[in-house]
């Protein structure tokens, strides 16, 4: 694998395709976009397959010094970045497919914006230079502004402005913090900064500046208000990518920057995160319960799920962080799928009002099945991806604070309430409305989008080790970095004594030690 600059390639493919889309006709633009995103997906799989689990922390590194003056073009991934890049390249072709028929005006520009978005997302997760990261992080505003503003719903302009200005206001403070960090540490290199010890009092300020930015992006209560507006107005694929990947940029920033770079401040201020997360879980779940607009309901549920992520991350222990990362991936898949489910029926009836539907199980059985699966995954039913993440993160949170764990678990119960209530009103009930009766079941294109999403949601639920294994080492590194400043939890867990292994189980242990000896 050495020699092939795979990350640069993954950045370049969608960027070049975006330019091609601008000059191509509607039909060609769709094909180009799909081809480019599929190529990137294949490249992603190649990268995952070649990722050496337990090997070097940073892999696929590329570095060009002096190209950009004071900062460098430096790329590289660890396990967490790898998984998030996989999430992005997995969702992108599905987003393009989701907009295949729904988007009819200015298709070239639309596809170009999505492809630019893909370049930016990969750039955010692969950047190993602080300023390069910031450039990608901020650049995401531009294509999303266009996607919401041009192809959005009736109130799209308000939503586009709110999204742009809100998130911009959040991120600018992070830039000042980054300048201070570069001045203090004398480098823009992220791996170096990860082990640099900033003075504790500086850390607090830097932490707050980063928090201001990332909390808006995430979004955390009380700065989440841009999200429901943006989601409701964005086109289906826009919501998919926004919920699926863009929100993860915020939590990625937490684990990439705030926790390992400012460990002292993280230990001191973990209660800020806990407090806001607790409010968010309960409050936004209650708000979701009373929504009459399907997209708004799922948007509020996103805020609640992201609050579990932040609480899990700030448990500052192995389970909490691993769980939070799985929730990030799971929510990326499941919320994208749920937004697409809404999109499917929106394309048929052109309304998102829950009351306008009912009884879909009768005339759209396949749809009802998929919707059921993703509803359950969102609730966290065992066997689906949601369960693994939520269970692990709650276990981690419990270790840090039983109160927080208690409140967050309430949120899970409320989550079941609003999702099941939604499902009941849309899919069950009597099929009495004439226009709803006329709605056809899923077509092959919709099958092609929902089937992979369902497969991944189940895979993650049944065998999460595939996703956890690449990230475990990175989580351990972060936990070790945080260990000195981590406050003691109130749970006082004591590990039980394992039973002596039965005779029959001795062989594998022997085998592995033997293998170790050979190496």
């Amino acid at each position, binding site marked *: 694998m050495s020699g092939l600059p795979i990350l640069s390639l993954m950045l370049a493919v969608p960027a070049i395709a975006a330019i091609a889309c601008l000059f191509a006709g509607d039909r060609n633009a769709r094909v180009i976009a799909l081809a480019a995103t599929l190529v990137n997906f294949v490249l992603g799989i190649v990268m995952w397959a070649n990722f050496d689990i337990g090997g070097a922390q940073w892999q696929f590194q590329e570095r060009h010094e*002096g*190209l*950009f*003056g*004071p900062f460098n073009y430096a790329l590289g991934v660890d396990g967490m970045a790898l998984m998030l890049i996989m999430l992005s390249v997995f969702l992108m072709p599905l987003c393009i497919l989701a907009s295949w028929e729904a988007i009819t005006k*200015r298709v070239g520009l639309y596809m170009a914006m999505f492809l630019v978005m893909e370049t930016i997302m990969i750039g955010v997760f692969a950047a190993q230079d602080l*300023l390069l990261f*910031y*450039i*990608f992080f*901020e*650049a995401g*505003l*531009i294509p999303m*502004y*266009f996607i919401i*503003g*041009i192809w959005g719903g009736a109130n*799209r*302009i308000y939503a*586009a*402005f709110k999204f*742009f*200005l809100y998130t*911009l*206001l959040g991120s*600018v*403070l992070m*830039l*000042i913090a980054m*300048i*201070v960090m570069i*001045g203090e540490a004398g480098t823009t290199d992220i791996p170096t900064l990860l082990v640099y010890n900033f003075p504790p009092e500086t850390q607090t300020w830097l932490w707050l500046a980063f928090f201001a930015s990332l909390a808006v992006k995430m979004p955390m209560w009380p700065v989440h208000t841009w999200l429901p507006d943006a989601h409701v107005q964005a086109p289906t694929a826009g919501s998919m990518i926004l919920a699926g990947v863009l929100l993860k940029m915020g939590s990625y920033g937490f684990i990439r920057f705030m926790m390992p770079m400012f460990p002292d401040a993280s230990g001191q201020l973990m209660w800020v995160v806990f407090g806001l997360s607790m409010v968010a879980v309960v409050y936004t779940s209650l708000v979701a319960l009373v929504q009459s607009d399907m997209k708004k309901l799922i948007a509020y549920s996103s805020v609640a799920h992201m609050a579990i992520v932040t609480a899990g991350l700030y448990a500052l222990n192995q389970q909490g962080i691993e769980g939070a990362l799985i929730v990030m991936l799971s929510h990326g898949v499941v919320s994208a799928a749920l937004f697409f489910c809404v999109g499917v029926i929106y394309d048929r009836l052109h309304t998102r009002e829950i009351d306008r539907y009912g009884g879909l199980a009768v005339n759209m059985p396949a749809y009802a099945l998929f919707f059921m699966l993703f509803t359950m995954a969102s609730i966290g039913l065992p066997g689906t991806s949601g369960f693994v993440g939520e269970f692990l993160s709650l276990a981690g949170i419990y270790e840090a604070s039983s109160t927080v764990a208690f409140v967050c678990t309430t949120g899970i119960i409320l989550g079941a309430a609003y999702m099941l209530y939604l499902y009941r009103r849309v899919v069950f009930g009597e099929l009495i409305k004439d226009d709803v009766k006329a709605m056809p079941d899923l077509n092959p294109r919709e099958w092609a989008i929902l089937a992979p999403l369902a497969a991944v949601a189940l895979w993650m639920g049944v065998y999460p080790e595939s996703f956890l294994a690449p990230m475990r080492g990175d989580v351990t590194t972060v936990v070790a970095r945080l260990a000195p400043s981590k406050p003691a939890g109130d749970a006082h867990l004591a590990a039980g004594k394992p039973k002596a292994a039965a005779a029959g189980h001795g062989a594998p242990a022997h085998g592995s030690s033997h293998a170790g000896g050979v190496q």
Partner: protein
Amino acid sequence: MTADLALIWPELILTIGGLITLMIGTFTSDRQVGLYQVASLVTLSAATAAVVALFGTDTTVFSGTLSVDSFGGFAKLLIYAASFMCILIAPRFFKDGMRAEYPVLILFAALGMGIMASARDLMTLYVGLELNSLAAYVLASFMRTDERSSEAGLKYFVLGALASGMLLYGISLLYGFTGTTDFAGIAKVMSGEMNIGLIFGIVFVIAGLGFKISAVPFHMWTPDVYEGAPTPVTTFFATAPKVAAMALMTRVVIDAMGPAVGTWQQIIIFLALASIILGAVGAIGQKNIKRLLAYSSINNVGYMLIGLAAGTQQGVEAILTYLLVYVVTTLGSFLIVMQLRDDQGNQVESIPALAGYSQRRPGLAAALAVFLFSLAGIPPLFGFWPKLLVFWAAVDANLVPLAVAGIVASVIGAYYYIAIIKTMYFDEKSDTEFPKGTGTVVEDAVITASALWLSVIGYLFIGVLAALSASAAAVLF
């Protein structure tokens, strides 16, 4: 004396070339556009070549009243390039109203600006400034029959005279309390005890110069003059004189008042923040694109002043990079504004008329979107870079609160830039037709090149830019 003359070739070329162009204009008909156009463009090219040839020299001429150094050289390159473009685009705009006086006035203004950028004595400073201003007053009212243009000229003249008066008063105070007009001499006195006379002198000089860079609260003329003046002239006002005045201000503040940091720093900080905030807020309600760009220029000057407030070499480097990027962006934006013509060929300046522009002229709309995002400083567009540099300089100079205030205010500024983009991209098509074929090949090439440079390609030039601005800024320290 003769040796000195060899070092001011750019100024000599401009003087002689300006006079020759004037003669051509006098003895031929105004219809002979090509003739005087070429004469003026050749003059500017020759002057640019002379600046390039002299780049790297660091000396003073005429008993230390004028400096020949790379700081001045950097500014002059930008000034001449901007003047060149402003002459190039004029005939198409004025059509039958084009007269030889236009390139002549621009040449003399460029001469004055070159002197401003090189002045290291209060007298040369004033001479250069007035030479530029007198040419500018006439240029603003160049379309004699147009009421708005005459009004712009008159307004500019009256307020400009007031500012000159303030500046002169400041100069006389500085002279009175230091006994010299030489920058280095003033700096020597200022490194000792400060007194009330010196402080007043500093305040008045900065106020006078603040008028020229249109920093708040001396900005009142800017929107009216930008709106009223013919578009090529507005383009000129927004680019070259900004560079000259900013370079002059930097040199006066760093060279002459350098030791009195405590006195001028707070004034500059006030001007910077006031310009950023008022420039942003004032632009929000504007319906005329030229007025809006006027407020945008006020806003951008505020960011440059943050670099100046830092008062370090890093800050001056940031200002120079900022000026370069700003000139490219502004030139590009105004080139597009010139192309906004309806099917009758009338100039369209109203922003609501731009609704749906992206569907009528996708290329130009995309370029304008690049320029506007760049002015707003949103990465990955290159306008982000100079903004980052000025904030960087401020943070390194321990002015973190200033940097925070500036960057937060930049969000207000982003609002009106993205509002225009919304009009062009999100709104339904307006009734105004925008027929094709409004621009010459050269104009389109310049627009394309600057839009591409500002999109991502600019980042590849960071190294070159940094080296250039560092060598220019180093002469002040």
